[in-house]
């Protein structure tokens, strides 16, 4: 379970995350939405221990992320950021195998190989497994990284804009996969999303942020309304029902 208490991040006098206290549900898909610069990624980075916090704390399964050894957390929390540059030539299988590092410390066991094969199959990457990461498309690479995080076999997974660089088809497929990881495997996934309609169609819970604060948290029915979205983004939108899902029209 992920919990934050009065989480704050300052750069000089600028406050980018301002006292965020959250308790996120388990075995659920949680989307974090908000305008650029609302502090979404900063919150995720602090929970992931990638960014030190100015004040407050973050807990994963009751463990304070600032005080818990990295390898203990790595068996409970998987993280994927937007910019992933690998300094060497690795194949997709190698990359996914890195996901087992917290468990195997570099010496793969039969159980590790099982997890790797499983993650490759889950993301439909078996035909590409021996291709080098720099020889596949952006969407395939993104799937490979997701497979690595799944192979890590953690209960909680934090994703910073997992739909970045994906076209409509691949974005929808990715969201379907993440949804299945929650429904079939009981994972907890927290994802920063920019596409409000994806958040609306796939989330169990939406956290809406503005200016470093959480302005609303609730189910898609509660969050995807013209009133709340005006408070979050500062624009007027129209919400229409399509196939039973609340869909936002804001293009003109």
């Amino acid at each position: 379970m992920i919990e934050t208490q009065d989480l704050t991040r300052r750069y000089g006098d600028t406050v980018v995350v301002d006292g965020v206290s959250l308790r996120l549900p388990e075995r659920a898909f949680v989307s974090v939405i908000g305008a650029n610069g609302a502090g979404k990624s900063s919150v995720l980075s602090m929970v992931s221990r990638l960014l030190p916090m100015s004040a407050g704390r973050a807990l994963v399964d009751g463990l304070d992320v600032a005080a818990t050894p990295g390898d203990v957390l790595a068996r409970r929390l998987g993280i994927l950021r937007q910019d992933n540059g690998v300094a060497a030539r690795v194949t997709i299988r190698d990359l996914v195998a890195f996901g087992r590092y917290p468990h195997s410390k570099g010496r793969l066991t039969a159980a590790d190989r099982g997890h790797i094969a499983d993650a490759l199959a889950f993301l439909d990457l078996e035909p590409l497994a021996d291709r080098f990461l720099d020889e596949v498309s952006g969407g395939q690479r993104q799937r490979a990284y997701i497979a690595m995080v799944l192979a890590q076999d953690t209960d909680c997974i934090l994703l910073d804009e997992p739909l970045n660089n994906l076209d409509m088809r691949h974005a929808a497929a990715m969201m379907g996969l993440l949804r299945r990881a929650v429904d079939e495997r009981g994972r907890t996934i927290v994802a920063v999303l920019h596409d409000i309609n994806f958040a609306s169609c796939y989330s169990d819970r939406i956290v809406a942020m503005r200016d470093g604060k959480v302005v609303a948290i609730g189910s898609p029915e509660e969050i995807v309304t013209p009133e709340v979205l005006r408070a979050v983004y500062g624009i007027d939108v129209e919400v229409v029902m399509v196939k039973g899902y609340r869909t936002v029209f804001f293009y003109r």
Partner: protein
Amino acid sequence: MHSGRAALRPLHVLALLGVAILGLAVVFMTIGANGRWGFVLPFRGTKLASLLLVACAVATATVLFQTASGNRILTPAIMGFDELYRLIQTGLVVGIGTGGFGDPRLRFLAETGAMVLFALLLYRWLLARTEGGLHRLLLVGVICGVLFRSLSQFLQRMLDPSQFVVLQASFFANFNAVRPDLLALAALLVLGAGVGTWRLLARLDVLLLGRDAAIALGVDHRRTVTLVLVLVAVLVSVSTALVGPVTFLGLLVAHLAYRVMPTYRHAVVLPAAALIAAVTLVGGQLVLERVFSLNTALSIVIEFLGGLTLLVLLARRPR
């Protein structure tokens, strides 16, 4: 079947390189030896040992540095290491003169210590920062290099010509005047660094994924990078203090190793780089002694032939 092939090939390459260095070593020890073996073998043995030692140290240091900085263009040399060595040498000549340098072992340890200290202060401080790390690192490294060079040039103006000649000789890598007692000391330090590297192997592989992914996988990034930099500092300092600057060799052999090895794993890339470095150094010294009759410096041979090789490689497979 693919994994079988992938597991075999690196070992094949390593075996091939091993055979090459063995052959070169035998040639090096025996070619044109028409004196008493009791003199030839220890004399050439010392030289061969120092070549191999420097090869291991420089190759390992470069690969480690590139992994820690997440960049395959940087080398410890670009970051002002060689210039610091020259500054220390110049300072010694200005301060003490060319004659009485004191106990060479003491001097060796002092030089090594000074360079390790400098490297730690600079790289630890720079690499520990997350934002804009690489560019700032490069900039500060280059500036430090220029600063050290200007300082030593300034000091050199104050020398008389004969002192300057002695000083200049120490600026080129020289394997002909290595003392056996220094060699043993250096071997001990390099061995220690080697053991340290061995214990870090798995974490080094994870570092290739970048800081964020390494932390996500539970590697203490700050601590690991610091450890790696200590190892780099020790290795570079030892080899530079032993024979002088071998600037280009590390970059060359690291890239050759990345090319010939079909895997990212440090467990095979590091030995490969060390073996390639050994082949290059021993081969270069052979060419130097037999073709040019010692009329030039080893670094000139290596930088000319090695530079050409690297250019050809880069042109043939762009990546």
